[in-house]
């Protein structure tokens, strides 16, 4: 059987998710045993428009992006959103809270008019997406799990529960117990609570769970001593697009 052809693409983002793939080390060889990578700007010069699976990193931030994204959708059998910016809009959506004219002037100064833009959005706001690899950056293990699932013809097993589940299993001291503020209780798990394991907090990079109890968690943040503005700010970092939709 012919190996599926895989391509990587990037939109507005830091390309850190593709870097995670490039950093798979020995697993990259095993991966190449199962798929042919035909486009991957970060690691190779070659390019092909014939591919089965497209991994798309980055969010859509201007009308111009949409044509390219729709062409990718047309070429690919399966489109996978790679990383927070593509999957949930990511930190690009922070600017959606601001006046876009002001954003353009801040970034491009008197050249602002030359750069068209619109509210940053995840790629599923533009095209149909078949699978998601969440995270900022993505977790290598989960990326491989998604690839394996696609190869096996299986829906990837992405948790619907929050990060607390993994924190408890990993026996972490709760960030709140350490006097810190964390949005793990409303954030989709699947990262193995990696940030909290290292003694810091969950910033919410994997986005909100499907049915978060946001009001309750904002109350928790305030109860533990955060100002109302800071509590709202915690939700703005990664949840901008999701919050606007809710």
């Amino acid at each position, binding site marked *: 059987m012919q190996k599926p052809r895989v391509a990587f693409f990037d939109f507005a983002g830091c390309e850190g998710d593709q870097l995670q793939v490039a950093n798979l080390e020995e697993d990259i060889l095993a991966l190449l*045993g199962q798929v042919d990578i035909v486009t991957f700007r970060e690691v190779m010069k070659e390019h092909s428009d014939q591919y089965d699976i497209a991994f798309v990193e980055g969010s859509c931030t201007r009308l111009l992006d949409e044509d390219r994204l729709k062409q990718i959708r047309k070429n690919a059998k399966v489109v996978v959103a790679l990383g927070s910016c593509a999957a949930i809009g990511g930190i690009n959506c922070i600017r959606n809270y601001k006046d876009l004219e002001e954003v353009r002037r801040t970034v491009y100064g008197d050249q602002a008019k030359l750069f068209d833009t619109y509210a940053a959005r995840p790629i599923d706001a533009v095209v149909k997406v078949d699978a998601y690899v969440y995270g900022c950056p993505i977790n290598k293990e989960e990326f491989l799990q998604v690839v*394996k699932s696609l190869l*096996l013809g299986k829906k990837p097993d992405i948790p619907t529960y929050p990060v607390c589940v993994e924190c408890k299993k990993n026996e972490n001291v709760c960030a709140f117990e350490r006097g810190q503020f964390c949005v793990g209780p*409303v954030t989709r798990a699947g990262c193995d609570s990696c940030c909290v394991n290292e003694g810091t907090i969950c910033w919410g990079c994997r986005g909100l769970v499907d049915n978060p109890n946001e009001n309750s968690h904002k109350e928790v943040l305030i109860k533990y001593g955060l100002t109302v503005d800071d509590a709202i700010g915690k939700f703005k970092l990664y949840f901008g697009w999701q919050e606007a939709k809710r």
Partner: protein
Amino acid sequence: MNLISKDDFNDFVNALIKDESWNVIGVKAKGSKFAFGPLESASELRLDYDVTLLPPKKYFFPQRETLFTYNLAGGFSAKNPAETKPAVIIGVHPYDIVALFHMDEIFRETKSDPYYFKKRESSIIIGVNIQKMSKWNFSTYMGAATVDYGYDLMLTDLGNRYAISVGSKKGGDLLAKYAKNVSGAFARDIQLVGQKKREIFNMAQQKLDFPPELIPEMLKKTYEESGFWEEHSEKCLACGSCVLVCPTCYCFDVKEEMDLSLEQGERIRTWDGCLLEDFAKVASGENFRATRPTRYRHRYFKKGKYLFDKFGFISCVGCGRCSSNCLPDIANPVKLLNDMYRETSVTGAQMAATTPEVNIQTEGNIDYVPKLATIIKKVPMTANETLFELKLDDSTELGHKPGQFVEVSVFGIGEAPISLSSSPTKKESFEICVRKLGNVTTKLHMLQVGDKVGIRGPFGNGFDVNFLKGKNLLFVAGGLGIAPLRSLFNYVLDNRKHFGHVSLLYGCKEPRELLYKEEMMALKHRPDVEYRAAVNWCPDGEAWTGGIGVITTLIPQVSFDPQDVYAVICGPPVMYKYVIGDLKARNVPDDHIIVSLERRMKCGVGKCGHCQINEIYVCKDGPVFNYSKIKGIPEAL
């Protein structure tokens, strides 16, 4: 009772560590908290801890556990996970010892869980009496602040020495082999230990306002008070923290993982929790406990009512971990139960009547490794449903009863419960009718004749055919509900003279969704079966001679004596209440109505918790139920 100086006790622990035949575990500091972990030296031990983040159950029922590994290269071969060294766990508080006793009972019931007991039986528990109590702890009220059983050794801190009670031969032998300078205790030391244990009862900062024996009756009175549960669970984050840290929670999920070769894989189980959103969700998308208040309520009922009714104990030891881990502060059982006590005003007199009769039986071990079976026939029935005929590779008979189900494995993908669709009178092979819905069933549809699947089971109670013999039967099937009913229906046809009047009512959405078309057509020519079918609608141009309308429109079309008929019903969840309502309106007695129910049956053996309807495990106690037995069970229909 024995005495050992603290220095000699440390030497004892270090000798155990040095021996290397033990996995020596103890309570250690973790940040500002404590956790059980492997000891490198006795100096790491913190026996003055208040509570550990996770209970010691993680050593017997780990967060993630391999059930078996397998290799698909050259067929399927399964291997049991490698054995681990026996554990010596030092510093277990009495409430966690009581919790392990609960876990033992639960994992032993019906069929014993070999993964749990292998580790449990080889391990040694060295307990320690509570020196500091967590501010959330209420174990004194739950009878678990001190304990006289369940440990191999039990320590009490007496300043510069420990008093050691030997609770088992294993414990005594360990002490004799590894400890030096152990002496017998004098009367004053024994008195001192008694005094230390009494002091524990003054440490609790939580206060339960009533005796915990009242809990089951209080819960019973509160079940329908939806306002009560909504109010208490309003802030629930559905994060599962309360159940994940609980020493008596045992629910788990079963998953499949493969490496990148796509040839080597393993089936694993991981901790799960009934507070999590998808806990009771099935592949069709139906979620049988979809709201926070119902899940929140289920946790209390499981601990305080369902397990109590079965085992005779309230499955909470008062460790307070759930309370301390709940950020919105709604998980504290003491607060909720005190509120409930005020609202229900249950008294001791009502309690006596509720003491359960405990009758726990166990027979053999659970086997999670499936048997191999080959697909010998594949008949597409509709766009989404296919009939598979399967034969076990070891040429044994499946030996099922009508109405039972099997867990079908598609390797690399996972396992799903599928009802058996063939009558046991067909012995050499069996059939399942599968709808393409989730991962397993979708992949199953891609398999061909000659391909292998795994089979566990048969599971469940099945229909009581001996009871039904001589009775008039009215089968009511909606959509895929015909699949399990066919196992009984075909049995009845194969033994036709043993049954009375037989009718079959079959409904589905539209003609193209009709299953077993040829068999159904053939029924029209059988004088000994009354068959009626209806579709909800018939698109233009499709041939259809049956009725149009919902399934209940068929009931008036067949003649039956309501007092002398047994109705057997299976269909989508929404169907039951309408069919049962119409039958009751015709004066069919409740105990003449038999239903087969669908739930998320993950383990198949009444352990993992997913298929639970209130106190009932559908995989074990069902899926066939007499309506009169479940009509009072709110989650059932």
